[in-house]
């Protein structure tokens, strides 16, 4: 099987989020960047598991600048065979999807994996855009995935339950919790990763479709009002008068 896993770089979950005075950029000092968790734990690992079962290759793809190569190397250390970085600072989700689609369209991948969303923009846009550009099925928020011959069976999260179906390869799959178990790179993986190929290619031109107007910090949270455990009637009063749920 020929598998492509798209990985992106995001601030660590525990990072304090603040913006420069123009409100257009994240303040990066003190922020550590990681591989987007859903890309790493679920998309990449499921890709590697399928290769272990069926043979073939797992390529990882990152659209971003040279500063992200640590993250790309980590994906190789976890078990990807080769990496491609498209040397560009993408302008929007359409740009990212256009770059990946341009690369993928002549490569006959069986599956293109992504995480369900990135934990910075939380857009969940690139996977569906990519599937639309490549004109192949999109499996969104996938929690289970198996392949038999040319047929893929999948289970996806939907509101209040799940849905299962079959479709033909190739497909784009966005990975949610349940699809695989996180793998931690070991020493051998880290050493091997240094020797694996990392190709850098130039971006194609993409029309920007959406622009960021500004980031906005949230209003400061007012301090919690504590209610004594033996004063439950006050809580009932709040539920009635203020929150209006009873």
């Amino acid at each position, binding site marked *: 099987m020929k598998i492509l896993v798209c990985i992106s770089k995001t601030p660590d979950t525990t990072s304090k989020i603040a913006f420069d005075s123009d409100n257009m950029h994240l303040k990066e000092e003190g922020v550590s960047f990681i591989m987007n968790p859903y890309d790493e734990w679920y998309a990449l690992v499921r890709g590697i598991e399928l290769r272990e079962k069926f043979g073939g290759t797992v390529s990882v793809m990152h659209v971003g600048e040279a500063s992200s190569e640590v993250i790309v190397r980590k994906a190789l250390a976890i078990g990807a065979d080769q990496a491609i970085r498209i040397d560009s600072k993408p302008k929007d989700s359409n740009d990212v999807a256009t770059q990946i689609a341009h690369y993928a369209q002549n490569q006959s991948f069986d599956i293109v994996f992504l995480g369900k969303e990135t934990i910075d923009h939380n857009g969940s846009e690139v996977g*569906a*855009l990519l599937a639309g550009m490549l004109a192949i099925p999109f499996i969104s928020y996938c929690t289970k995935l198996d392949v038999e011959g040319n047929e893929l069976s999948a289970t996806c999260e939907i509101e209040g339950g799940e849905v299962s179906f079959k479709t033909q390869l190739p497909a784009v799959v966005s990975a949610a919790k349940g699809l695989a178990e996180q793998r931690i790179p070991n020493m051998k993986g880290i050493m091997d990763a240094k020797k694996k190929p990392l190709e850098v290619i130039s971006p194609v031109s993409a029309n920007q479709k959406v622009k960021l107007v500004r980031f906005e910090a949230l209003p400061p949270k007012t301090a919690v009002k504590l209610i004594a455990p033996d004063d439950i009637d006050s809580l*009932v009063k709040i*539920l009635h008068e203020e929150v209006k749920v009873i």
Partner: protein
Amino acid sequence: MIATYIEVIDGKIKKSSLEALSLAKDIAAVKGIKCLALSTSKSASAEVVGSCGADELIVQDSGELDQSQLIDWLCKLYSAYQISYIVLANSSIGKAIGGQIAAKLQLGIISGVNGWAAASPMQFRRSVFSGKANAWYSFMEDKGVISVMPNSIPVKKTYSKVAEISESNVNLSGPVFNSVNKELVKGKTPLTEAEVVVSGGRGLKDPSNWGMIEELADLLNAATACSRPVADSGWRPHHEHVGQTGIAIRPNLYIAIGISGAIQHLAGVNNSRKIIVINKDPEAPFFKAADYGVVGDLFEVVPKLNEAISKFKEEHH
């Protein structure tokens, strides 16, 4: 023209679709354009979409369509009706098809919108960095795909009109997905649409203690949720797991019981309008995110609360 895709479940329009329609109507009113509602079910009511401001309801009664057919249908209507904006609920369907439609029609997409501003160009707000900030975006052109985060935009049934019904009869491509098996929890409001959510964490100690959580949820007409370790240990089903790896929700009220409030949990719930926390540890991080808190043993506090609410309801009805 601006058009909203209307999802119908069990013969009823989903609330998240009416929220999307309400946002579309607000935009239509400011821009002086026509507002369409698009549905593939004849159960979509012209009265209901009309009361939310739709001028016209376009129906193609084709039963359940798969994703590829739905995309095909919406893209064909986009051209036929010269639509400029397609508005979807950011539901599981919306997330799956939004980007594909945008790619096929070469439009921009702004997903998970939770507010908008009638500037020129229009601006749309989305929660970013796992709920730690917001961002505003604009389209480069005066057209695009918008998906609306459930529970962010109030449904405004304020128009006294019935939408005019037109039937569409588009020739659709064959399905790409087959042997669909849907398993839904019957009769319950999906978590993303619930206005009140009562949630339990590891502090409940054992799944057999969930009775009091369910009782509280019943009293408040709420959905139930849980933290990740609770779902991972199989105490509760996975579709109740909220947080960064689970579902992100925006209810009016979130009640967290025996949950520490770890950052990964908060990532899924910190956009709730009001948060009430019951935890015996005064240092639990959840108290920093909460509006109201009770520092106490949940095994004493929750039964007392249930009793007090029951009593209150009896006295007031």
